């Protein structure tokens, strides 16, 4: 695999101290993830659990998730239950960047420190609520731009490209589409159409099939995650266009690696979900140890993202 360093994380000054001394029990930190059927979030959960195992004196960790990527009410239920159990910090990967805000406001009102990871909450909603919820995660725009640039170099100017994105309520879905757009524009290519594949293999397949039918001259499909890219591979094969339509994904999940190896998927981006989890936990522990108020937490803690292609 060829690894291109794309985004160097900012110096995490806040996170230089990696051990804290607690007067009583270590704090209870809960992580609420999206779909546990998505390998990306399984890796994120594994990273968090590995951190907790290595630092048993530092925190009591709970990791939970929902089945479907867009299960807002499922996440709300989990959070309400966690609030009854008296947690100290909540790290949330929201299923929706706006709809999850009310329950997170309840958590803050209950004195729980809330940190946002991976999929950013919508700044517009945060501004209207007047609340500060720090974001720990990568620039999805930069990651998608690097994937888009790589694919665009393989295509002649004027080529038409389809985008398959995550749910419209997710900021990271739209940030990735914006990154793809920027790459296409700078290479003189154009967007033939966008469909939502809702982060899912089957929905991705349907979205890709629809785009292939609507635009017979389509030259590439840029997908907002690897699951949808796997669905796109199936749609392209079913249409008998293998090799004629380039495909790219995002996330570098274990399941995409064989597609990268055999060239059916040209590129993806690794966001190191395990490290995101570590950064978010350390931010929470540091803030709890220092008694930092929600309003005084840093706004953004940037984590790395790298383009992944065949050598």
């Amino acid at each position: 695999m060829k690894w291109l360093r794309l985004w160097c994380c900012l110096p995490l000054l806040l996170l230089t101290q990696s051990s804290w001394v607690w007067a009583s029990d270590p704090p209870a930190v809960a992580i609420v993830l999206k779909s546990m059927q998505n390998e990306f979030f399984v890796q994120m959960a594994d990273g968090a659990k590995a951190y907790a195992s290595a630092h048993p004196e530092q925190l009591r960790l709970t990791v939970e998730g929902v089945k479907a990527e867009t299960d807002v009410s499922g996440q709300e239920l989990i959070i309400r239950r966690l609030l009854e159990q008296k947690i100290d910090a909540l790290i949330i990967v929201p299923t929706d960047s706006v709809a999850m805000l009310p329950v997170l406001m309840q958590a803050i009102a209950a004195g729980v420190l809330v940190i946002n990871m991976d999929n950013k909450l919508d700044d517009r909603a945060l501004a209207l609520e007047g609340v500060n919820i720090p974001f720990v995660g990568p620039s999805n725009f930069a990651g998608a731009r690097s994937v888009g640039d790589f694919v665009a170099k393989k295509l002649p100017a004027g080529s038409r490209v389809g985008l398959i994105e995550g749910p419209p309520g997710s900021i990271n879905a739209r940030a990735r589409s914006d990154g793809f757009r920027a790459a296409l524009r700078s290479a003189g290519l154009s967007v033939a159409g966008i469909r939502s594949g809702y982060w899912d293999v089957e929905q991705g397949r349907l979205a890709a099939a629809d785009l292939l039918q609507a635009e017979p001259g389509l030259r590439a499909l840029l997908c907002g995650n690897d699951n949808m890219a796997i669905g796109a591979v199936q749609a392209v094969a079913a249409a008998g266009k293998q090799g004629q339509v380039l495909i790219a994904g995002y996330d570098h999940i274990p399941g995409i690696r064989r597609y990268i190896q055999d060239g059916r998927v040209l590129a993806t981006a690794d966001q190191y979900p395990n490290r995101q989890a570590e950064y978010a936990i350390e931010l929470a522990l540091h803030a709890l140890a220092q008694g930092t108020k929600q309003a005084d937490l840093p706004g953004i803690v940037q984590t790395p993202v790298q383009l992944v292609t065949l050598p």
Partner: protein
Amino acid sequence: MKWMIFLLWGCLLTGSSWAASPVIEVYADLYPPFIILQGGQLSGPYIDAFTQLAKEQGIDVHYQAMPVRRLMKRLAVQPNSCGLAVNFAPGEAETIRYIGRVAPITLAVYARAGTVGKMVNLEQLRQYRVGAIDVAELNELLDNAAIRYEPLAKAGNGIAMLQANRFDLLVSDVLPELLMAKSERVTIERVMVLARVERWLACHPELSPATLNGLRKALPVGVFADSVQGIWSRYGLLPVYDQVRREWGTPAPH
């Protein structure tokens, strides 16, 4: 000798008051008639109103005119800086912070008068040459509908390009009715409203919490607070002020 001591004391007092009042560097692109250049300085109701609202929160503002693309890149790396009246973009929101809404804008479709009839849906754009300002929310709308368009690097040039027949339709938030003299040879008319979105104050992610909170308090109704009504009146734009206050559900004081 006494006067020197008083002078020194005065300087110290002035210095300490400067130190107490945070100063932020604010970048803004021209957006007539709301942000204009007068005598080489940024001016207009957005600028004057924001200056006053920030001052009410004890924040001083130093302005610098800057094209929007450069401005957005600068915000991500320049501590203690903000961009006034920028458009929301999901990709940018991961590296800078959108603090508060400044003003609403209408994304609309414009044509040379008499060349295109009234439109009712986005699909109708498909048969025309379209130029569009480079705003993420608009790009998303047009791409979702698979409409081909020429993105305009400089939004301010859109009307002139439309008048010069560079394209048939302009999708923009600029309000020709506020900019064009009645004697203009080629008049422009609005043929469809696409969407209503907002312009924002966006800042470097490490802006101090105290300054951030002050700025949020300054902008509950953007640059249309009660205390700045006189500024809008002075620029002859009171109807804009009244319309926004009605739209945001906080009718203007009388």
